[in-house]
C-alpha cells in the first residue's frame, strides 16, 4: 500500500468535529488584520494555536453582540507529522521566508480571511511529489506520515477507514506477488517499504502469511494489533478449485513447497492427512508468531464419485497408501464391521425389504461387511426362514418341483442358499455315504487339488474312502 494514502485519513479527520459554534472567518474579515493575532503558534512556533474563548467575550458580551459558545476544537486524531509549530522552519528552496497562512488555507488572490480547508495537494507540490496522492513513491510517505505503530491516536475505526490505493486492486496484488515486490522495493536499504508501514503492522501480515518469521519485510514492520482492523479476505488461488486439485496437490507441494508455506502450516496438511507426509513435515507448525494461515476444510475428493461407496474396494486394495493419506483403519470398520445399532448408512432406508434381490446376485460381496453365520443365518433363524430337519418342501413354493431342480439356482447363488441352509440339509441327497448319492461337483471342480489342500472336507461326504481321481 502506498504510504501517502494515509494522508487521506488526515483529510477525513480534519473535517469539522461539530463544535458548539463555528468561527466564521469571513464574517470577521474586517476585524482581524492578521492570522497570527489569534493563531500565535503558526507564526512563532510556540504559544497556543487557538485563541482563548474569553477573548470572544470582548465583543460577544450579550450587549454589544450576542454571546457565543465557541471554543477551540479538540486535537484531531491523525497520522500526519505536520505541526503548526513547524511552520516557521518550513522554507522552500530559494525562499527565506516560510509560506504564509494563505498558501495552505486560502486561494491565491482570494478575499481576506476566506479561509478554506487545507489543500493537501500543496503539501505534495512543495515536497516535490508529482503524482496523485495514493500513487506517490514510497520514499514520500514518511515525510508527511507517521507509521501506523507511531500513530497511536488512531483508533481501529480510523484504521479500518484508511483508503485503499489503486495498486491494491490489481489482480496480481494479493496472490500474484505484487504486494511482495512492493514491500521490498522501498529502497534506501529499508527491509520494508515505508508505504507499507504507514497503514500496516506485522499483525496484519499474519492474517495470511504463516511464513512471517521467515520474511524480512514482515519482520521489519513494527507490531501493532490495531493493524488487523483492516480486514482482508484472501480467496484461494484458482488452482485450488480444480477438481483434480485434491489428487494432484501433493505433486505441486513437492515441487514448490515454499509457495504452500506462504499460507499453510503443517496443520493444513494434517487436517486431512493421517501420519505426517514429507511435505507436511517440512512446513512449520502453527504458532502465535505465524498466525493461523489458511483454514483447510476436509472435503470429499472429486474422484470419490457418486458410486464410490461401492467402487472403492479395488482402489483401496491397489493403493492402500493413498487411502491411508486421509483415512485410518477405523474408518473402514465403520461399515466393514457393521454396527447393529445403525439404522441407515451404506444401505438406503428400507433395505431390509429390498435385500433379497441385492443378495441373490451380489452386486457387492455381502460377506465383506457381514458374517454369513452371525448376520444372515441368525436373523433368518429368528424369522423362521431356516430349514429344520427333516428337509421339507414348501417354502420355495413358486414351483412345486423346486427341490428336484434346484441345482442351477444353487450353483448361481450358493451364498444365498447358505443363509438359510446348513450343510446337513444338502447331505440328505448329496453324499456318498448315504441318501440319494447325487454328485454335487460341477464345472471347475478339482478333486485332486482339494484333496491335497484339505482332505477333511472330502471326508464329510466320502468318509475315509476318498476316491482317487
Amino acid at each position, binding site marked *: 500500500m502506498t504510504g501517502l494514502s494515509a494522508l487521506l485519513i488526515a483529510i477525513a479527520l480534519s473535517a469539522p468535529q461539530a463544535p458548539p459554534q463555528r468561527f466564521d472567518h469571513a464574517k470577521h474579515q474586517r476585524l482581524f488584520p492578521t492570522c497570527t493575532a489569534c493563531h500565535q503558534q503558526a507564526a512563532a512556533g510556540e504559544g497556543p494555536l487557538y485563541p482563548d474563548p474569553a477573548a470572544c467575550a470582548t465583543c460577544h458580551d450579550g450587549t454589544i453582540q450576542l454571546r457565543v459558545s465557541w471554543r477551540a476544537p479538540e486535537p484531531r486524531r491523525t497520522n500526519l507529522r505536520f505541526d503548526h509549530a513547524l511552520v516557521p522552519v518550513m522554507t522552500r528552496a530559494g525562499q527565506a521566508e516560510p509560506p504564509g497562512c494563505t498558501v495552505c488555507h486560502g486561494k491565491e488572490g482570494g478575499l481576506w480571511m476566506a479561509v478554506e480547508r487545507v489543500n493537501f495537494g500543496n503539501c505534495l507540490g512543495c515536497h516535490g511529489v508529482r503524482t496523485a496522492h495514493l500513487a506517490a513513491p514510497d520514499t514520500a510517505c514518511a515525510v508527511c506520515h507517521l507509521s501506523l505503530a507511531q500513530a497511536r491516536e488512531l483508533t481501529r475505526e480510523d484504521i479500518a477507514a484508511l483508503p485503499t490505493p489503486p495498486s491494491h486492486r490489481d489482480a496480481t496484488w494479493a496472490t500474484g506477488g505484487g504486494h511482495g515486490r512492493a514491500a521490498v522495493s522501498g529502497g534506501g536499504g529499508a527491509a520494508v517499504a515505508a508505504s507499507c508501514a504507514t497503514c500496516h503492522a506485522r499483525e496484519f501480515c499474519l492474517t495470511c502469511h504463516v511464513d512471517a518469521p521467515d520474511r524480512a519485510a514482515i519482520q521489519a514492520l513494527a507490531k501493532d494489533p490495531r493493524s488487523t482492523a483492516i480486514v482482508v479476505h484472501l480467496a484461494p488461488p484458482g488452482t485450488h478449485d480444480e477438481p483434480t486439485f485434491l489428487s494432484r496437490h501433493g505433486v505441486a507441494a513437492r515441487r514448490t513447497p515454499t509457495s504452500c508455506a506462504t499460507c499453510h502450516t503443517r496443520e493444513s496438511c494434517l487436517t486431512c492427512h493421517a501420519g505426517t507426509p514429507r511435505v507436511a513435515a517440512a512446513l512449520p507448525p502453527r504458532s502465535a508468531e505465524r498466525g493461523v494461515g489458511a483454514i483447510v476444510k476436509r472435503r470429499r475428493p472429486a474422484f470419490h464419485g457418486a458410486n464410490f461407496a461401492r467402487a472403492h474396494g*479395488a482402489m483401496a486394495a491397489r493403493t492402500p497408501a493413498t487411502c491411508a493419506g486421509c483415512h485410518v483403519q477405523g474408518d473402514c470398520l465403520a461399515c466393514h464391521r457393521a*454396527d447393529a445399532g445403525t439404522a441407515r448408512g451404506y444401505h438406503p432406508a428400507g433395505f431390509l425389504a429390498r435385500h433379497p434381490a441385492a443378495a441373490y446376485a451380489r452386486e457387492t460381496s455381502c460377506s465383506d461387511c457381514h458374517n454369513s453365520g452371525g448376520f444372515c443365518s441368525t436373523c433368518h433363524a429368528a424369522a423362521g426362514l431356516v430349514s429344520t430337519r427333516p428337509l421339507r418342501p414348501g417354502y420355495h413354493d413358486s414351483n412345486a418341483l423346486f427341490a428336484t*431342480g434346484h441345482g442351477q439356482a444353487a450353483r448361481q447363488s450358493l451364498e444365498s442358499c447358505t443363509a438359510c441352509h446348513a450343510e446337513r440339509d444338502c447331505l440328505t441327497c448329496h453324499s456318498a455315504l448315504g441318501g440319494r448319492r447325487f454328485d454335487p461337483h460341477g464345472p471347475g471342480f478339482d478333486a485332486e487339488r482339494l484333496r491335497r489342500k484339505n482332505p477333511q472336507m472330502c471326508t464329510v461326504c466320502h468318509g475315509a474312502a476318498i476316491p482317487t481321481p
Partner: protein
Amino acid sequence: MTRLRAVVSLLLWVLALPRAGPAQGYRLGLDTRAQAVSYRGVLLDSVPVSDTVTGPTGGPTSRDGFAVSCFPGFSYCSVFRPGLEQHASPLTSTADLTAWGLGVAGLSIRVRARLGASLGASDVWPGTEPALQLLEGYAQYAVERMTLQLGRQTVATRLGVTGFDGGRVTVRDGRRGLELTGYGGFGLWRGSTLPVTSSALNPLGEFRPPERTIVAGAGVGWSAALFDARLSYEREVDPSVDYFVSERAGVDAVVRPYRGLSLSGGADYDLAQGWWGNAEATLGYLAPNGRINATARVRRYRPHFDLWTIWGAFAPVPYTGIDASLSLTPISRLRLHASGEHYAFENANVATPLVSVESSGWRFSWSAGYTVVRDVAVEGGYHAEFGPGAASRGFEGNISYTAGEVLALGLHGGTLDRPLEYRFDESSLATYGVYAHYRPAPRVGVELDASRYVEERTRPDATAFDWNQLRVSARVVLAFAGGADLAGLPPAVQGMPRGPRPEQ
C-alpha cells in the same frame, strides 16, 4: 436379568471411558446408537392331508386358507403360517481411542471396541452377541520407512478385509513408491470380530474347525505417477489338522495415461480351489472441470468359501457383468447420475427339466439432485434390478435442509416392489420418514430418525400378511481429547470429532 446386566455394563462403559487415557495425549470418541425395529417371518407347521382342501387357484390349502405342500406318500403336509412379529431394539456404543506420547516417538495405541445390548422383548437382531466386541486394538510403531503393528487389526486387500490377532510390518521406500507388507496371526472369521470357533457365528450348527485358524499374508505395491500395481497373497490354515482353509493370490493395477483418464483392473486366483475368483477392468474418466465422471467396467464375481465347508465342492459358478455409470453436473446446482449393469452366469452344467431358473439379470438406476436455494436440496431417483432369485424396483427421494455443520433436517420417502422368483411373495412397500442431525458443538452430535414402513404382500393364500412398522433410531456422538499436541493430530487419526459425512 442378562439384558439388565448388559445395560448396566453399557452405562458403566460410557461413564468410565472418558476418564481413561493416562498417556500424554489421547483422542476418545464415543458413538452410541439405538434403533427399534420389528419384522415378521414365517412359522413352519404341518397339517394332516385329510385337513387340506382345494384352494381358489386349484392348489391344496389348509382349511384356514394357507397353501400347503404335500409329498406323495406322506400323511402330513407342510404349511408356513405368519410368524410372530419380532421386536428388536439393539443399543450399541462404540469407543474409539487413540493414545500417543508414550515415551517413544512414533509409538501409539489404537483401540476400537463396541458394547452391544438388545433392549427389545426378544433378542432377535444380529450383531449384539457377544456384548463386548473388540474391533481393533493394537500398538503401532511408525517411522518414515516402516510401520509395525501388534494386536487385533484388519488388513484390506482385494481378497477382503481380513481380521486377525497378530502382527504386521510394512516397509516402504517413499521415494521409489515401493511398499512391502507382511502379516500373520490368529484369524477372525470374515466380516466379524470373532473367531470361526465362536458359537455366535454358528446359529445353524454347521461344521466348524475346533481351533482358531492361523492367517498369514504378504503384499508388495509399487506406485508411480502413471501407474500403481500391487500383488497380494493370503493363506489361512486350520492348525488342528494343518490343512488349508483358504489360499488365494491377487493382483491389482491402474494406469493413468492421460489426466482424468484411468484404466484399472485386478483379479484373484483361488490356489486352493484352482480357479479364478473375482476380476474386473474399469475405464474411468473424470473431466478436468469435475462435471463429468464416467466409468465403464467389465467384472466377474465368484463367491469364495472356506475349505472347512463343503460349499466350494458344489462348484459355484461365476457371473460376468458389464456396467457403466455417468455422473454429470451440467449446472452447479444440478447433479445427475445414471448407472446400469447386465450380467450373466456361466453355464452351471445342471440339467433342470422341471425347473426353469433365470441365468442372467440386469439392474439400473438414475438419480438427480437439485439445490433449490443455498441450504435446501431435493434429490430423487429410481432403481430397478431383475435377476435370478429376486427382483426389485422403486423410487426414492428426499428433501433436506442444512444449516452449516450444525443442523440437518430432512424428509425421505420411497417405494419398492419386490417379487421373488422361487417363492410366491410379491411385496409392495412404501416408506416415509424424517430425520434430524444436530451438532451443537464440534465434539457433540445427536441424530434422530423415524420412518414408517407400509407393506402389502400379494399371495393367493392367507400367508399374504402385511408387515407395517414404525422404525426409530437415535445416535449420540461424543468426543474427548487431551494432550500437548492437541491441535496437531489430524481428524483422520483422531477419528473424532467426525467431519461431514461423505455422500453415499
